[in-house]
């Protein structure tokens, strides 16, 4: 084992240990804000593992999208529903937790056995045959994955409009008094915002 492989192995072990510990913290800690920040730690560790797997573009996208967008979105949601509520205790809740933990450990044992038993047909080609993964990904996106690529943009548009429609809150209490508004099948049940007086 030369120096480069040693550095890779040590980095991988450190990243894996940090990732598993942070994921356990996300699930087990009682404070939701700590969980959100540890989730960011999980995403950064996974990005480091992607770099070890020769995928630089996806590592950058992981940090940009997960840490920059999704984690911030989760923090905003925690702020918006910020309510220190003590959940009322459910009798025999430890049975649920224990059985869930048992099922998860069993699932891990099953998956681990499957992974270790299966003879993987490894490709001996070095990953260095691809000089620039960004160019290779772009060729895939615009040749054989063109339809999913275009569908993804439509999906993002649908998700954006759906999130706005779901999250806006001003409903009309006095729909009947505003009879001058013509209601069609496309009329939303929300009221248009009052125009602010400008100047004067």
């Amino acid at each position, binding site marked *: 084992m030369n120096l480069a*492989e040693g550095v890779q*192995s040590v980095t*991988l072990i450190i990243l894996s240990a940090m*990732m598993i510990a942070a*994921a*356990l913290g*996300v*699930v087990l800690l009682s404070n*939701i804000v700590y*969980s*959100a920040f540890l*989730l960011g730690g*999980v995403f950064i560790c*996974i990005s480091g*593992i992607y770099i*070890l*797997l020769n*995928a630089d*573009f*996806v590592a950058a996208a*992981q940090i940009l*999208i*997960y840490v920059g*967008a*999704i984690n911030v979105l*989760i923090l905003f*949601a925690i702020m*918006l*529903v910020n*309510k220190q*509520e003590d*959940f009322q205790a*459910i009798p025999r809740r430890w049975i*649920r*937790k224990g059985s*869930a*933990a048992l099922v*998860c*450990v069993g699932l*891990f044992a099953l*998956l681990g056995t499957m*992974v270790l038993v299966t003879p*993987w047909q*490894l490709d001996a*080609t070095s*990953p260095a045959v691809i000089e620039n*993964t960004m160019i*290779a*990904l772009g060729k*895939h*996106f615009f040749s054989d994955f063109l339809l*999913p690529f275009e569908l*993804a943009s439509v*999906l*993002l548009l649908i*998700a954006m409009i*759906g*999130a706005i429609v*779901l*999250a806006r809150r001003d409903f009309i209490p006095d729909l009947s008094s505003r009879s001058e508004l013509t209601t069609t099948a496309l009329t939303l049940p929300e009221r248009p915002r009052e125009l602010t007086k400008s100047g004067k």
Partner: protein
Amino acid sequence: MMHLEFFLLLSAALFCIGIYGLVTSRNAVRVLMSIELLLNAVNLNLMGFSNYLDPTGIKGQVFTVFVITVAAAEAAVGLAIILAIYRNRQTIDMEQFNLLKW
């Protein structure tokens, strides 16, 4: 040390932690975080296969980019749904969301 099996075991562990959090947590936002953990475990699996079984035509990385896109859309819609439920029920306890119970 850098074997395919190690990455697969790592993603299996992350997946199991995510399942445990998904089933047992009572805070609705934490359930969404667990779903993100599950999606990341799947992504790690795809990247491992892409690097070790298909290093010339990195299709696993393409799939990972698509999964990241769908995860972003899912997070936005999921958090909007949680906000709507919170305004409706004044709580984010998963045990109180029994609108479909009969």
